[in-house]
């Protein structure tokens, strides 16, 4: 027989003005299991809480019902109060007499009747409550950042500056990502490398950051506070602990390969640093193109030339496992492969039709042309440049439906650069809309117009070569006339798409993706950096297209979230989670399919049945992953799962009490 105490709050006059408190108290006295009823002016106040504590001792109460404001308001307050008493904090139910009764009704009699019903429901429910215990999980105060672009670097630096160790994993041989490839950044025209490379160096030298380049995440298990992550360190064939980065090997290597960093417009060697400011500033061997490693020749020149003897052709992939408390994903983007979908733009057959990133390299002082805008085909300066926006963006038929957000601005930047660097140049920009939401963005666009860029509203329908010129045919939708521009070079501002391999990362960490494969945040407005996997956060373009300021802001936001987790020695788990009765479980596995958090897994367990040992498949709930939604409970056919705190018995008692 339980001993329930009921405490009705006046909330000043908030409740008492509409609800007849004396009548509620009177009725509550006759409710089942109720041994003590009291009303109080302000239950949440210090004396109000003390009155409950005193009554618990005096009347040997073992569960409490409080009729007050919404449980969303003071449930944590009263749970905390109960923690200092003999009663378990979860032996509490709150009847919402304010927000859902006195504040929404005016008829005193009917409101009082409803208040009595609400108290009765809470009394009935609390009788079925069980003591629940939060378990604490220790937190490994080490963060993993996946992706070494500006987002990953910023997140790693922020976490490291807060005093926690960080492992920064990058699959390419250097940090930097896409930002380091850019020439200038809009709208201030800062040199991108000048602001990005110092950050890369900071990350590389930070005592709390371990940079792991040429590495990929291979396996993730565990949960918030304790992710066990296996990282594959790809063979680089160069011992970086010995290498000084002198560069002799690179000079001597006879294999020339198209440079990824220069967007295919220059060559690198098979042993290479992607770019001069790479971090770490040490080369790696590209096994597929190395004559010795791919078996095409004996070579091995780098090995004989290396003064430190750090070339090791026997190098192999290594698997490194470590435990991390939180993970930041910053896998970024790549540009859509326009060549395969835009046959009307030549599908790649014209070398002078390039994408935005190629243009960035062309215009960059350390790029293949040392900053002179020259046509890739013949190295001549183009006098007429056409820029086509929304190639792949806002084009659901051929590309993606979304807007890639940064293109309007970098198209304006490209136009500005063409007009600035080439005398008497003409620059046409084909656009659908000009979207310049951002601080000082519109001003930048206006400046480009003043520079003389000609904006034509319409898509380009066809690009073909005629007499050495690239003819861009399109429609000026403002005048309704078709236009045809003879260009020397065409820059396609192509859509951002999630980086290749993001599916693998998402699957490893059980993060959902949207229709376009962008990683899904927990809430589009209020939880923009969290994911539905507790302890895993998003930074940068992997979550959706954005520009550098937004990326950096999001990276710092995710770092703040990580530091929030690390500020605690232990994490309290929510005890209101699903629980499986393995005796009833039929092992169908429906619950595992329903669970949005992959918190339920199927396990083979041994049972004794009719004196015989048998193995049966039953479901188990991971308390670190379960968020307590109860979807599995409603979906369980044999009724083997129940949600602690909202058990079937509790809710049915509430239903019964209401319908009395």
């Amino acid at each position, binding site marked *: 027989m339980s001993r329930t105490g009921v405490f009705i709050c006046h909330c000043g006059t908030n409740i008492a003005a509409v609800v007849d408190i004396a009548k509620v108290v009177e009725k509550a006295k006759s409710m089942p299991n109720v041994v003590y009823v009291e009303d109080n002016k302000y239950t949440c106040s210090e004396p109000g809480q003390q009155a409950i504590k005193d009554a618990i001792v005096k009347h040997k109460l073992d569960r409490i019902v409080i009729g007050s404001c*919404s449980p969303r308001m003071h449930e944590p307050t009263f749970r905390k109060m109960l923690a200092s008493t003999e009663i378990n904090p979860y032996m509490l139910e709150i009847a919402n007499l304010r927000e*859902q009764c006195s504040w*929404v009704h005016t008829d005193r009699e009917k409101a009082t009747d409803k208040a009595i019903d609400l108290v009765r429901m809470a009394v009935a429910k609390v009788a079925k409550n069980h003591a629940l215990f939060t378990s604490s999980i220790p937190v490994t105060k080490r963060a993993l950042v996946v992706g070494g672009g500006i987002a990953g670097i910023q997140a790693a630096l922020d976490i490291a500056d807060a005093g926690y160790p960080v492992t920064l994993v990058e699959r390419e041989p250097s940090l930097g990502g896409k930002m380091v490839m850019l020439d200038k950044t809009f709208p201030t025209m800062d040199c991108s490398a000048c602001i990005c490379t110092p950050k890369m160096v900071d990350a590389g030298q930070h005592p709390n950051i371990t940079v792991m380049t040429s590495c990929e995440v291979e396996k993730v298990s565990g949960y918030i506070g304790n992710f066990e992550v296996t990282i594959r360190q790809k063979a680089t064939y160069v011992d970086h602990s010995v290498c000084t980065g002198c560069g002799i090997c690179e000079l001597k290597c006879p294999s020339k390969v198209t440079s990824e960093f220069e967007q295919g417009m220059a060559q690198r060697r098979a042993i290479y640093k992607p770019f001069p400011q790479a971090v770490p500033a040490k080369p790696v061997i590209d096994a597929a193109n190395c004559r010795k490693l791919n078996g095409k020749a004996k070579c091995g020149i780098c090995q004989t030339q290396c003064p430190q003897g750090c070339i090791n052709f026997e190098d192999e992939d290594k698997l490194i496992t470590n435990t991390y408390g939180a993970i930041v994903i910053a896998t970024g983007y790549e540009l859509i492969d326009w060549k395969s979908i835009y046959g009307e733009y030549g599908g790649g057959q014209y070398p002078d039709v390039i994408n935005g990133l190629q243009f960035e390299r062309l215009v960059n002082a350390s790029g293949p042309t040392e900053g002179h805008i020259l046509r890739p085909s013949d190295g001549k300066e183009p006098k007429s440049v056409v820029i086509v926006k929304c190639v792949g963006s806002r084009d659901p038929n051929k590309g993606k439906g979304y807007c890639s957000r940064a293109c309007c601005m970098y198209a304006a930047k490209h136009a500005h650069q063409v007009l600035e660097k080439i005398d008497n140049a003409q620059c046409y920009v084909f656009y659908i809309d000009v979207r310049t939401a951002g601080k000082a963005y519109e001003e930048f666009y206006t400046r480009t117009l003043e520079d003389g860029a000609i904006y034509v509203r319409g898509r380009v329908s066809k690009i073909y070569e005629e007499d050495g010129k690239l003819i861009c045919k399109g429609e000026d939708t403002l005048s309704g006339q078709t236009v045809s521009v003879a260009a020397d070079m065409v820059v396609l501002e192509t859509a951002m798409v999630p980086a290749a391999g993001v599916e693998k990362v998402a699957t490893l960490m059980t993060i*959902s993706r949207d229709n376009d494969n962008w990683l899904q945040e927990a809430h589009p407005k209020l939880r923009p950096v969290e994911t539905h996997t507790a302890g895993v956060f998003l930074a940068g373009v992997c979550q959706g297209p954005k520009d550098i300021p937004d990326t950096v802001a999001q990276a710092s936001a995710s770092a703040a979230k990580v530091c929030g987790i690390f500020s605690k020695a232990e994490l309290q788990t929510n005890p209101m989670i699903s629980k499986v009765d393995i005796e009833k479980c039929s092992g169908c596995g429906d619950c595992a399919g329903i669970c949005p958090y992959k918190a339920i897994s199927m396990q083979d367990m041994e049972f004794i049945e009719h004196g015989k040992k048998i193995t049966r498949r039953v479901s188990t709930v991971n308390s670190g992953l379960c968020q307590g939604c109860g979807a599995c409970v409603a979906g369980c056919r044999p009724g083997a799962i129940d949600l602690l705190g909202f058990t079937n018995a509790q*809710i049915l008692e509430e239903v019964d009490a*209401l319908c009395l």
Partner: protein
Amino acid sequence: MSVDVEKKNVDPNWEPKILSFSCNWCTYAGADLAGLNRMKYPENVRVIRVPCSGRVNPQFVLRAFQKGSDGVLVCGCHPGDCHYVTGNYFTRRRFLLMQRFLEYNGIDPRRFQARWISGAEAGKFRDTVTKVSNDIKALGPNKKFQESWYKERGESNE
């Protein structure tokens, strides 16, 4: 359309009993907001807080009708906004099946409704419960599935 109304001899002061299952993150918050804004709605709707509309077991609905409820309302976050990612999609499917099952058994589908009300939609909460309350009042007391109905007519009816 089934007809379950036995409107004769209904007391003019009769008030229906309506039960609303509301998810903690959207609709319950919306109901609290309605209070905060001092909106007014009928007293005959009682809210049971559940973590997610996906937690609502069809058994709860049947039990409510069995024990004398005249209407049941299930409310959750808008599709796509579920706090628990996918919970309300299950609700939606379950609700459609359940409503057809109830109709097949002679319960007017207006007695069992589902609505998506976000934490900001206090006005929608007020309007929804007001409408459901008026609808059910017009339908009169529910007799189907009710324990009391069988009890009144003796065991031979069971």
